[in-house]
């Protein structure tokens, strides 16, 4: 594991590596969250805590309920039962936009760049407390012009960091898939979140961009933000996460440092099946 200079990451050494383990300073706590679709239980999480200031990966095979769990936490879907809180504030029944305002901002698995808005417009949209977004004030440009200029300055500095500055006047639809992922993440930062929830930030991103995305995510931790991300790319999980949570069939089956989780027998079984190391042909031949 690489060296870090913030306090958030050191928790990994002292936290027990078992599902639902308590963290020293949790920013997000979830209890007894279940979500059923008809007869299928998509999510059934007993207890989960996310350490403040850490990068936590949420992994699991396809259909494990990771994205559904994300949707529940961010208010895009309502659970059948359970409670969860962010910074001590209960989030039950809180609509998505209010969750975002509280400081928990998400991105989407299928990138939601706003295609017929330019890149800079996408960015500016994310800024909080815009006077010009009030319907009455919108017709008096002098009320919001100064604030808009500040927003643009902030947006350009983030875009520059994400190497999208030269694209700022292009429609978002003109960006490549990887650039859209970058834009979505950059846009989320405009909201000044405390916690960033990234749903498969690496899907469809080419290796060169991947490296810069990784750097951006690490930078978020340096700034003291908490990151929770869903990912299939194990290299990435290994490289940047302080803590890994493994879901399978809606439940959390393991937690721990990346190294410990990848050696966990249950995790290997969840991904590859219980009898993955048996030679099938041998069996058939017998």
């Amino acid at each position, binding site marked *: 594991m690489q060296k870090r200079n913030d306090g958030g990451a050191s928790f990994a050494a002292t936290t027990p590596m078992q599902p639902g383990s308590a963290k020293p300073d949790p920013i997000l706590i979830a209890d007894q969250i279940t979500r059923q679709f008809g007869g299928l239980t998509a999510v059934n999480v007993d207890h989960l805590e996310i350490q403040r200031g850490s990068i936590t990966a949420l992994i699991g095979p396809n259909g494990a309920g990771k994205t559904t769990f994300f949707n529940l936490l961010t208010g895009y879907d309502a659970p059948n039962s359970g409670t969860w809180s962010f910074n001590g504030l209960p989030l039950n029944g809180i609509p998505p936009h209010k969750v975002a305002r509280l400081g928990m901002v998400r991105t989407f698995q299928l990138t939601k760049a706003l295609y*017929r808005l330019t890149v800079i417009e996408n960015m500016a949209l994310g800024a909080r407390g815009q006077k010009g977004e009030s319907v009455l004030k919108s*017709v008096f*440009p002098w009320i919001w012009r100064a604030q808009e200029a500040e927003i643009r300055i902030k947006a350009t500095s983030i875009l520059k960091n994400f190497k999208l500055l030269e694209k700022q006047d292009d429609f978002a639809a003109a960006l490549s898939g990887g650039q859209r992922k970058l834009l979505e993440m950059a846009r989320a930062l405009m909201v000044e979140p405390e916690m960033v929830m990234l749903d498969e930030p690496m899907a469809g991103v080419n290796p060169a961009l991947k490296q810069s995305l990784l750097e951006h995510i690490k930078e978020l931790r340096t700034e003291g933000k908490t990151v929770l991300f869903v990912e299939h790319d194990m290299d990435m999980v290994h490289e940047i996460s302080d803590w890994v949570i493994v879901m399978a069939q809606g439940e959390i089956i393991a937690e721990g440092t990346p190294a410990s989780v990848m050696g966990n027998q249950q995790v290997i079984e969840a991904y590859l099946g219980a009898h993955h190391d048996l030679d099938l042909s041998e069996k058939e031949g017998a």
Partner: protein
Amino acid sequence: MDFLFIIQQTLGATIGVNTIIFALAAIGLNMHFGYTGLLNFGQAGFLAIGAYSVAVPVISFGVPLWVAFIIGIGNSILFALLLGVPTLRLRADYLAIVTIAAAEIVRQIARSATFNEWLGGSDGITGKFGKDFFDLNPFKEGLETPILRFNANDLWVVITGWILVAIIIFVMWLMVNSPWGRLMRAIREDEDAVRSLGKNVYLYKMQSLIIGGVIGSIGGFVYALSRQSVQPDNYGTALTFFAYTVLILGGAARVFSPIVGAMIFWFLIVFIEQVLREAVTNNVIPDWLIGVNQVGQIRFMLMGIGLMCLMIFRPQGIFGDKKELALDAKA
């Protein structure tokens, strides 16, 4: 053939009352559909509410006209809330279904025998409810030039109507070029993304529905006043779809497109009709091919062909940006 008459009729229609009415209806739709992505198929309902709100209070309850205008705006806000509260939290399709039904409900209520006493049933309301407005008319005589003619009342309606359109367009231009307008376009692209940035999408969609609806109902004011009568069947679904035609002709999500769209729409309808009529009556087109009574239908056929050509060769409308249209919103 009397070419001067054709020009006079066509020019009169191009900048006339109907153009103003359709432009206002389409400006409202532009707010809904062009900028916010709301599929409102019930714009005719907003016009009907505007029209009846002007006529009924004045005729049946003796309210002054300016109070009737305020009632009309209030009613259209109520109608927008009624449509929006249950549907704007749902997917876009639900709004489309509910609005098309609601506009028909408005029309059917207006023409029902039950409310005959106040709303005039299927005959509608005819009377001098616009007296307060026409009393202000400074023109004692109409406009009489070889190529353009309006009688005194029409001239007054046309001039005030265009001033009204100009004011509305200007305010709308300010709005759509503000952060508020950006937010609206963002909602059109992807609501969930906008929610994830901490914006109350529901509230903004409601604002759009109300603003577009009020503009539509102002179109209804003009419709009622210009004719001094309100006929329920003028506010059928055809009106909504003509308004969409106007909007798409001009190009959605462009501030000026409803005006240009409405002008082209009425220019074509009247021009085609007048040319055909003149040609048929002067036997330029033989009787066995097109009779005088068929002109009315044929102009719509030709209009339809024209629109098809537009969609094929210029799908983005007059003002639209083809590059922008080519970007698949769901790519």
